[in-house]
């Protein structure tokens, strides 16, 4: 029925059935977040290493909380505090982690493909918590869970992704996931952030530079974070971005009634999104955070709790 997952490296290679299974398995963990006593012993004695080679607050806290609520212990590795600054290679760092015998490693890295590189060489389940501009699979899963809960299903909606699609792993994972469910995807932002290649990521993806056109008939809108360091003269000033692309209450009116607004956070009010939209009834940003816990608990339960993965032969370096 379901091909067993050993790692979660990305959405692209998952089947629709595997995705639905993960979303279904998050349901009991959503209910669990409402328990007065939020502590299970299910993964007692297991250790999850959180290897964050790139800054992260919310994703790291979400994984740490998910592990804690399942009863697992966590080992924390943060780039600033590690030997990376002393020039240690990624492989040496994760091998050191592995020697402490964790039962799973959650990894975030600024290089695309780093989690896969590690998964190929260690005998421990690996969860990708974001790699370069490649994928951020748990974000796409929690977005899908949020959309499915609010709208009853995933199939057939019109999705608009606004902002810096080029540099966004969140956008890529969402495109891979939702296109598997027949969602029609419109990417919208300044032309410099929307190369033609994005249309080849999945079927039913189109690029639009005018936000009014992109929002027309949208059922779900994902506003991406815009990194201010990427907004500068002469290419594009922040003021111009706000003028042309900010998701405002007036622009939201162009979408279908009751269209959902998602944002992966951290959100910069007044830049990519107007505060009234972020706090409005169509906004799902806080549900996304709670659903993130449920998705991560479901994944850790299935990946870390199950059988040990046989380590590959040591020759591969």
């Amino acid at each position, binding site marked *: 029925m379901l091909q067993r997952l050993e790692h979660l490296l990305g959405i692209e290679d998952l089947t629709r059935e595997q995705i639905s299974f993960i979303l279904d398995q998050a349901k*009991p963990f959503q*209910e669990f977040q409402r328990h007065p006593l939020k*502590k*299970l012993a*299910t993964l007692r004695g297991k250790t999850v290493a959180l290897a964050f080679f790139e800054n992260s607050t919310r994703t790291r806290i979400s994984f740490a909380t998910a592990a804690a609520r399942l009863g697992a212990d966590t080992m924390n590795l943060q780039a600033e505090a590690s030997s990376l600054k002393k020039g240690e290679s990624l492989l040496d760092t994760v091998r050191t982690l592995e020697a402490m015998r964790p039962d799973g490693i959650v990894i975030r890295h600024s290089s695309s493909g780093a989690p896969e590189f590690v998964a190929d060489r260690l005998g421990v389940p690996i969860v990708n918590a974001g790699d370069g501009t490649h994928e951020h699979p748990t974000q796409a899963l929690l977005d899908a869970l949020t959309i499915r809960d609010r709208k009853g299903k995933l199939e057939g909606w019109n999705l608009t992704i606004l902002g810096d699609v080029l540099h966004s792993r969140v956008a890529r994972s969402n495109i891979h996931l939702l296109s598997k469910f027949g969602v029609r995807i419109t990417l919208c932002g300044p032309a410099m952030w929307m190369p033609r290649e994005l249309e080849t990521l999945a079927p039913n993806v189109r690029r639009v530079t005018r936000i009014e056109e992109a929002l027309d008939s949208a059922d779900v809108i994902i506003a991406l974070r815009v990194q201010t360091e990427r907004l500068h003269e002469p290419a594009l000033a922040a003021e111009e971005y706000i003028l042309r692309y900010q998701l405002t209450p007036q622009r939201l009116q162009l979408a279908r009634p009751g269209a959902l607004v998602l944002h992966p956070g951290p959100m910069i009010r007044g830049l990519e999104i107007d505060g009234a939209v972020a706090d409005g009834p169509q906004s799902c940003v806080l549900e996304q955070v709670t659903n993130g816990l449920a998705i991560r608990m479901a994944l850790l*339960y*299935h990946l870390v*709790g*199950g*059988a040990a993965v046989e380590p590959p032969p040591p020759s591969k370096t």
Partner: protein
Amino acid sequence: MRVVEKRQLLSAEEISRTLQRLAHEIVEKSGGTKDLALIGVRRRGAPLSERLAKTVKDFSGVEIPVGTIDITLYRDDLSTVGPQPVVHSNEISFSVDDRDLVIVDDVLYTGRTIRAAMNGLFDLGRPKRIRLCVLIDRGHREMPIEATFIGNSVQTSDTEIVEVHLKEIDGDERVVLVDRVP
């Protein structure tokens, strides 16, 4: 290893009659229905608890709350080989605080399932009392757990299996004793 049916323990009619008696016993020994609630252990405890509640309503007019608990996350035998068991949601729409709870399950065997169910209930609050109702008690306990309300006690060997078939889940309705033979 083959599985052979040795004998039928209960017919559909006997299951029905047993549940009638258990429903009456629960209300009688509770001194009424005040604070009473039933918690069915997924899967076959769930339809059994629904049927008990319906019987109570038929003879007393009182609708007692019914919930379902999934014990997967509370098991003590999570696999170290092969995939993890699928988790299901609890369906308990009332607060268990200060409730007089009766856990309902089909077969009482080692007692480990009931230990897990109680752990799950403690995460939801602090019940006033927890008792246990089972359709079949087959012995071989590995925990200090006994049922307050027992449909039938059956002597079994540890290679035997008590199979409860309920129409809601299995399509047919009967309890059989099967054995594993080499």
